[in-house]
């Protein structure tokens, strides 16, 4: 990893780019807009999309996603620091490829676009059993998940095996990293995802064995206790959350499922917010990428809600907290 002062140029560029990020006031304006078209116009006025691009929201949002990585490429920084951010996407593609290969399906829309491990490459790897082409942290889980899917046809079992491997990989990457931002992001990501899994499992009455397989150990709380609490029911889990230091999650759960989803995303943005004051580390770059992805996700939520004529309050409940 480069010396922290090697990031001086990149961090200074990020400071200027941060001034162009959407603020909570921008989100409020978009939520109050009369329809999806007005939101798109607002975003285009803010510089979203590109010259000659129409009003297709997906095209505008994919251009914005591409802009994030183009900017990072221009800064000539070590790209391996961003690997951990792509783990959820590549593990997701792995799940989709295992299911497609085992069930002879072809669900093009189920894949997330990725430079290296997109749909075609992931399908080839799983079909040819060329697991050496995968990152090391993925190799062990593929044959297990593939066999489980092939023999049981249980998509949920395959999902929890791959998701658990993903969480373990994120946790390991965080512990291995020298960058505080990666450690904080990994810890927050694993803790929040564990809570999400426990909430869903508690609501659907999953077994203790399922919970123990699905939850990944993390520093924030004892997952065995969480598994037992979730197994005892949602009320027991709600009692456990404040004891584990996640009182806000309990409050959000009481409000509504969408408020809880909002809390989950906000928790990760809050984990990287201190990077706004870092002068010379990779932290502000990673935080900027997370912040941009967060605002793209928020824009997508608002546009979709507007297209479906949801009331303002319902949209506001779903919008995420902004980084700046």
């Amino acid at each position, binding site marked *: 990893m480069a010396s922290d*002062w090697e990031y*001086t*140029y*990149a*961090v*200074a*560029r*990020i*400071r*200027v*780019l*941060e*001034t162009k990020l959407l603020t909570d006031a921008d989100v409020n304006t978009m939520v109050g807009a009369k329809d999806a078209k007005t939101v798109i116009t607002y975003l285009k006025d803010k510089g979203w999309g590109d010259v000659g691009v129409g009003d297709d929201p997906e095209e505008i949002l994919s251009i914005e996603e591409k802009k994030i990585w183009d900017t990072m490429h221009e800064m000539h920084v070590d790209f391996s620091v961003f690997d951990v951010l792509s783990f959820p996407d590549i593990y997701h593609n792995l799940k989709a490829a295992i299911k497609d290969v085992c069930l002879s399906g072809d669900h093009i829309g189920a894949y997330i676009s990725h430079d290296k491990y997109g749909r075609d490459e992931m399908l080839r790897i799983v079909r040819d059993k060329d697991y050496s082409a995968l990152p090391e942290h993925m190799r062990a889980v593929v044959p297990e998940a593939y066999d489980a899917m092939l023999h049981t046809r249980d998509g949920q079992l395959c999902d929890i095996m791959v998701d658990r491997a993903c969480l373990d990989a994120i946790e390991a990457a965080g512990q291995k990293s020298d960058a505080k931002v990666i450690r904080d992001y990994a810890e927050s990501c694993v803790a929040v995802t564990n809570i999400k899994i426990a909430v869903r499992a508690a609501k659907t009455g999953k077994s203790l064995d399922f919970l123990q397989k699905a939850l990944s150990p993390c520093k924030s709380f004892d997952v065995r206790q969480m598994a037992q609490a979730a197994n005892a029911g949602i009320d027991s889990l709600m009692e456990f959350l404040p004891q584990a230091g996640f009182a806000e999650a309990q409050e959000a759960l009481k409000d509504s499922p969408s408020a809880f989803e909002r809390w989950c995303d906000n928790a990760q943005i809050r984990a990287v917010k201190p990077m706004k004051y870092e*002068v*010379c580390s990779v932290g502000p770059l990673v935080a900027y990428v997370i912040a941009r992805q967060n605002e793209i996700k928020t824009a997508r939520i608002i546009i979709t809600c507007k297209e479906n004529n949801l009331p303002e309050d319902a949209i506001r409940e779903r919008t995420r907290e902004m980084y700046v």
Partner: protein
Amino acid sequence: MSELGMFFGLLGAAVAVLFAGAGSALGVGIAGRAAAGVVTEDPNKFAQVLILQLLPGTQGIYGLLVGFITLSKIGLLGGGNVAISLPTGLMILAACLPIGIVGLISGKSQGQCSAASIGIVAKRPDQFGKAMLFPAMVETYAILALLISILAVSNIPV
């Protein structure tokens, strides 16, 4: 013995110029990278970030000043032959150490501080005055070292 005295006197001038200059080079380099980052995205801030980049450059000038005074003191400037005893030469070397060492450390630190202040200007250009003050605080210690070096070199009897 007088040649050895002259050597240490000259070494003092070299220490002042070399270390203080190196500190400035490091500091201006660090601040320069930050300034380049800001100008890449917003060329309108060129003047403001240039001033912040130049702040760590003063240590090199202070070192040069002490170097000139020292060379003049030991007679290498102006052509006059001055006999420098070994104790005098060592005293001149000691007198040059403050600006050399403090110049090196403060130059680099001021560069880092300037880089942080360039971050302020990047986000809040209206706070340029306040942003200037932070690296200027570091300058205080370079000036203190400069004063002591000048007073010491000037008052060593030759």
